[in-house]
């Protein structure tokens, strides 16, 4: 849909550290992160809880600033990219405004940046169709299922036709079956819009199913442990039956092993308390 000419990387993270000052002392959330995301590429971040996935995403979104190192988005600073609305973002909680209808929620970023109301109305209709909620424009969030809410959040993130989509466990709160369905939908939508996606998840099958590359992170301090390219063909052409494919299971195993530190996973990991 948005096929603008892009000459630079979508995201360039260079030597980024992030240290939080907490009551108990300093927390090194990220250390020495280098990452490049190409335009149109689908990259997942995976890793155990607390390894800094959300922190990294928030740095890219300029919701937080790195302690050192730099983050560039489409060749400008993350800050400029935010001001220029170069990205759309979605979180684990859909974060819809409960007092706004579906259409009004999707229209929010447009309204805030002064689109004319005719423009807004047309774009919202387009987006509602894109995420398959045609008859639900006048509904309110509390009348929607979790999956539908997430679709509204995705539509909202796409409202300004961003070339970069940032998603922090957007399907984390959904049940497994709805989740699989939403994954397939997301692949379709990202193919239609051609946007690059940085996608945070806890789920190995999800990361494998969706991504061109899976970035595996390790905690304390958050580092990139491995980057696993997916040998599953173009994301645009993936369909549900891929989930029962041998290659799929192989990729799952590859990511699992990267996650467990190269060695095959075993249950003898000591009494780690989580």
């Amino acid at each position, binding site marked *: 849909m948005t096929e603008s000419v892009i000459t630079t990387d979508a995201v360039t993270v260079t030597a980024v550290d992030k240290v939080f000052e907490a009551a108990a002392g300093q927390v090194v959330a990220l250390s020495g992160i280098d990452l490049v995301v190409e335009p149109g590429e689908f990259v997942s971040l995976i890793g155990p809880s607390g390894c800094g996935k959300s922190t990294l995403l928030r740095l890219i979104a300029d919701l937080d600033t790195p302690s050192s190192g730099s983050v560039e988005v489409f060749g400008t600073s993350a800050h400029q990219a935010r001001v220029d609305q170069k990205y759309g973002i979605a979180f684990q909680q859909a*974060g819809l405004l409960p007092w706004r209808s579906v259409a009004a929620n999707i229209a929010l970023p447009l309204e805030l940046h002064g689109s004319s109301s005719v423009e807004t109305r047309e774009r919202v209709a387009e987006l509602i169709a894109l995420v398959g909620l045609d008859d639900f424009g006048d509904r309110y969030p509390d009348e929607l299922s979790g999956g539908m809410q997430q679709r509204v959040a995705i539509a909202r993130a796409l409202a300004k036709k961003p070339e970069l989509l940032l998603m922090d466990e957007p399907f984390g709160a959904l049940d497994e079956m709805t989740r699989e369905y939403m994954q397939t939908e997301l692949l379709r939508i990202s193919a239609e819009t051609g946007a690059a996606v940085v996608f945070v998840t806890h789920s190995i099958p999800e990361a494998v199913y969706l991504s061109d590359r899976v970035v595996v992170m390790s905690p304390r301090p958050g580092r990139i442990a491995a980057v696993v390219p997916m040998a599953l063909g173009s994301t645009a052409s993936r369909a549900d039956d891929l989930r029962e494919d041998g290659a799929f299971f192989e990729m799952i195993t590859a990511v699992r092993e990267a996650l467990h530190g190269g060695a095959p996973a075993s249950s003898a990991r000591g009494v780690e308390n989580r």
Partner: protein
Amino acid sequence: MTGAATIAPPRGRPPGAAWGSGGTARAVAPIVLGVSVVAVWQLIAGSGLVEAYLLPSPAAIGAEIVEFWPSMVSAGAITGLNALVGLVAGTLIGIISALVASTRRSLDGMLAPIVAALAVIPIVALAPVLNTMFGADSQTGRQLIAALAAFVPVFLNTARGLRQTQPVHRDLMRSYAASNAQIMRTITLRTAAPFTFTGIRLASSLAVISALVAEYFGGPRGGLGGLISTSAASSAYPRAWAYVVAAIILGLAFSLVASGLERLVSRRR
């Protein structure tokens, strides 16, 4: 200080507690209770067990209500107007102060002891002083008392509501590079609104009762409070009770309207 003044806005019943066929029984129950209490009261008062002089019967009170209806309406209008002015003023001041307090922790801290003091101050203590400050020939002192009474719950609830903005909404607005004014308008105020309206509901009946009690301590005549006291002072107890009934109706009207508004605002959140 007065935490329960910040009783959370009503939420739905837990699932499994649906209103089934018992719904009618529950709707009728308060009426049945009310009617039976009045009936027992009438029986006791009518039995001669207690002097009518001491305990006027509901029938006698009813007769007074009928006879003094026009006077009840005009007195209710005076007291009601005072309560309304106070409620509106107290609400506005409460919202504005809460907004101010939400901007800086220091301002919040500075307001805290003043609000705490206002929350425990007995109206009777303040009424004579306010009459001197604002004039005994005007309703201002009474309106101010109603405003002070309304201020506290509105302030506390609004301040609480202003702290309820969800982090995800704040992140979202930042991702839109929204201005502070836009954030305030789209997120902060809207999130706080149901809490504010809960405060207004609590404030509504407080405003009425405060405006009414303030009439006991000087000022122009004609309000419900003055009429209750005058009737009681001349031993016209059925009439005093009739005015009390009017006061209850007035308070009820205020709180019903406020609850309605609250429900309207907190339907979606």
